């Protein structure tokens, strides 16, 4: 806890409606964020029960230095993933980190199942489990709005954070997301379903406690240094300017932009849906997470005709690179308005955009190849047909029939049931990200603790390594995984990883009373990685069981056609590293 040498944890048991507050000195060596969340998940999980059991806990944690330093603006959620069946980890921005800090909790552990549909409110002076029966079934944004209006009191507006699930989460879609403050999400790995399983529609966090600054001079100097790096240098410029979609064109040129279910690494209509095209045609606003002066949230607007006779409405949704990939190129959709329309539907349904897009990509190809029929898909899914995909998203969130029931468990499960595993583009059960850049983009998520491209940035190594070298790639992935365990204990936005070099991290943390050195940071990273590996072990994960779809080795990547055998050899080499780490005493 800021200014203290302990971690303050709020436990909420939805079943007994009791809370418990813990003061945990023993968690201090894990610093905060993903470190304390991993430990708390390990302590509270039920390895013998199904991942979807409501008894499985959900943990939220903020990092050390959260909100009070620029761009330390995210919150981590850890849970048992309904999608992969093992360690679930997801990050979101918005106001949540700020609100948790102001409320006075480093971590929030939610266990049990509420007796009826409920939402939870957490503030400095109170915790409540409230009736949400009439909110169940509502689209995501309407439900958030109702919570916001009901909890309206003087002085809280703009300072609270609201988390909400949509119909997908209520219906247990394994990749349902949780929206945070409208525009940000715990997108990946199915936290939305975990909340749904607990009868929990929403969470509101607000705080107004006083937090005296211990060493104002030192703290404010560190704050200013970091603030200046964020605003007066070009280090963060691209994230604010056109934002992450600026990557569409370079990735397309490099042949690493997954298109039409990765049948190709290039999209012939990339110019139409580039970051530049979105900025020109649709961008209407930029926003920031609390505590971040960058402002990378890009809100796009499009005009929807809802009736004949010139009846229009303006729809605005946030967009990013990964959404344009998953719901655009991966589905062959070539118009910015159409992509925004699909994003909007995914948003209201409360699905993870990436998994939803990749699952629909598989479904489209499975239909074309005769593995499934339109009796299953209910819609004649075709690459490029946005209207069909919008219908399919609705079916998916509502789990309309047996096919959508199965597709709602991820494309790995769907392909096991219907066939087409070679082109079900998942890695260890998690649908792929928007990079087909080389071995890093395949092996990185395969060995990464949560099977995300962001575990170790393999796709980035593919692009920065001058010459491919197996051992260098394995070493690079391992080093980066350890490093991100450490940086995620501050829960910094990954965009700021260049701002927060180790020297800057130490300057920031030591200005608020930590006494850490470089070796401590290394140990913290390794300690956290060990805990994550323990979690994976407890949940029965076996690296050798990971089977990669053949498509990865057929469609040329940025670095040419990849060999299957090489990928598996890289994985085996990586396992030697984690085995050695587990032997280390820290």
């Amino acid at each position, binding site marked *: 806890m800021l200014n203290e040498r302990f971690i303050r944890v709020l436990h909420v048991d939805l079943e007994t409606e009791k809370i418990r507050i813990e003061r945990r000195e023993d968690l201090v060596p894990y610093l905060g964020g993903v470190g304390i969340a991993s430990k708390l998940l390990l302590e509270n999980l039920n390895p013998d029960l199904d991942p979807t059991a409501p008894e499985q806990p959900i943990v939220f944690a903020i990092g050390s230095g959260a909100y009070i330093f620029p761009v330390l603006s995210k919150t981590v959620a850890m849970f048992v993933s309904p999608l992969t069946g093992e360690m679930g980890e997801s990050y979101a921005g918005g106001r949540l980190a700020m609100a948790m800090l102001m409320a006075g909790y480093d971590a929030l552990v939610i266990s049990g199942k509420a007796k009826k549909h409920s939402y939870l409110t957490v503030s400095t002076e109170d915790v409540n489990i409230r009736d949400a029966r009439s909110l169940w079934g509502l689209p995501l944004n309407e439900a*958030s709005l109702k919570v916001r209006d009901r909890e309206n009191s003087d002085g809280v*507006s703009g300072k609270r954070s609201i988390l909400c699930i949509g119909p997908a989460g209520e219906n247990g879609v394994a990749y349902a997301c949780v929206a945070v403050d409208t525009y940000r999400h715990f997108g990946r790995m199915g936290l939305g379903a975990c909340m749904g399983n607990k009868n929990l529609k929403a969470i509101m966090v607000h705080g107004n406690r006083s937090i005296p600054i211990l060493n104002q001079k030192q703290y404010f100097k560190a704050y200013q240094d970091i603030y200046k790096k964020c605003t007066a240098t070009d280090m963060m410029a691209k994230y604010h300017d056109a934002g992450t979609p600026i990557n569409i064109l370079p990735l397309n040129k490099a042949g690493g932009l997954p298109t039409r279910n990765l049948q190709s690494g290039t999209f012939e209509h990339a110019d139409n849906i580039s970051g530049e095209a979105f900025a020109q045609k649709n961008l209407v606003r930029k926003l920031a997470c609390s*505590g971040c002066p960058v402002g990378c949230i890009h809100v796009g607007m499009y005009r929807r005709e809802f009736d004949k006779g010139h009846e229009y409405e303006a729809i605005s949704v946030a967009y990013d690179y990964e959404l344009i990939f998953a719901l655009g190129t991966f589905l062959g959709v070539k118009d910015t308005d159409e992509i925004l329309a699909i994003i909007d539907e995914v948003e209201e349904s409360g699905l993870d955009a990436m998994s939803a897009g990749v699952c629909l990509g598989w479904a489209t190809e499975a239909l074309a190849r005769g593995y499934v029929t339109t009796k299953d898909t209910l819609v004649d899914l075709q690459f490029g047909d946005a209207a069909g995909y919008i219908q399919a998203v609705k079916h998916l969130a509502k789990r309309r029939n047996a096919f959508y029931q199965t597709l709602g468990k991820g494309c790995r499960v769907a392909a096991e049931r219907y066939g087409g595993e070679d082109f079900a583009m998942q890695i260890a059960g998690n649908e792929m990200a928007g990079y087909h850049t080389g071995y890093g983009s395949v092996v990185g998520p395969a060995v990464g603790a949560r099977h995300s491209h962001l575990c170790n940035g393999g796709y980035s190594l593919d692009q920065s390594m001058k010459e491919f070298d197996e051992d260098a790639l394995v070493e690079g992935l391992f080093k980066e995984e350890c490093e991100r365990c450490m940086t995620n204990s501050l829960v910094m936005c990954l965009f700021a990883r260049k701002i927060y070099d180790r020297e800057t991290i130490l300057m920031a943390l030591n200005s608020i009373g930590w006494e850490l050195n470089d070796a401590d940071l290394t140990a913290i990273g390794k300690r956290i990685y060990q805990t994550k590996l323990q979690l994976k072990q407890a949940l029965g994960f076996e690296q050798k069981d990971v089977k990669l779809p053949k498509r990865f080795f057929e469609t040329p990547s940025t670095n040419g056609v990849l060999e299957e055998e090489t990928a598996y050899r890289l994985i085996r080499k990586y396992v030697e590293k984690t085995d050695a780490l587990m032997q280390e005493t820290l």
Partner: protein
Amino acid sequence: MAKILRPKEMNKCLGCFACMTVCSTVNQSNHALSKSAIKVRTIGGMTSSYVAIVCLGCSEPACMEVCPSSALKKRAGGGVLVNEETCIGCRKCVPVCIARAINFDEERKKPIICKHCGVCARFCPHDCLQMIEAKEGMLDAE
């Protein structure tokens, strides 16, 4: 010439809250947003616009007029300065502010009123907040 704070271009606001962070830090030595003299908020959820609620720098400050102990004194350029020695914490200044810009510090039992120091404007990444030259009667002119 004395300057005064104006949230001139809130249409550009990102909602980063840097202004509130630095105001609480510099003026109250506290991390709490609730201690900031400037309040940035939405007018109804993240999809709506941001507004800044902060002292308008009235030429005839109602807060000063209502203060029973004359703890609020006129500031050159507009607004008031609080003398915490003589402020008794009666809160009468809070409801009379038409901009609802006076915040009461429940911990210290003193009002938090913007003194137009300009630190928020210095840390506004999008130049929404600006310090401008004060002119007599400018509030009415605007």
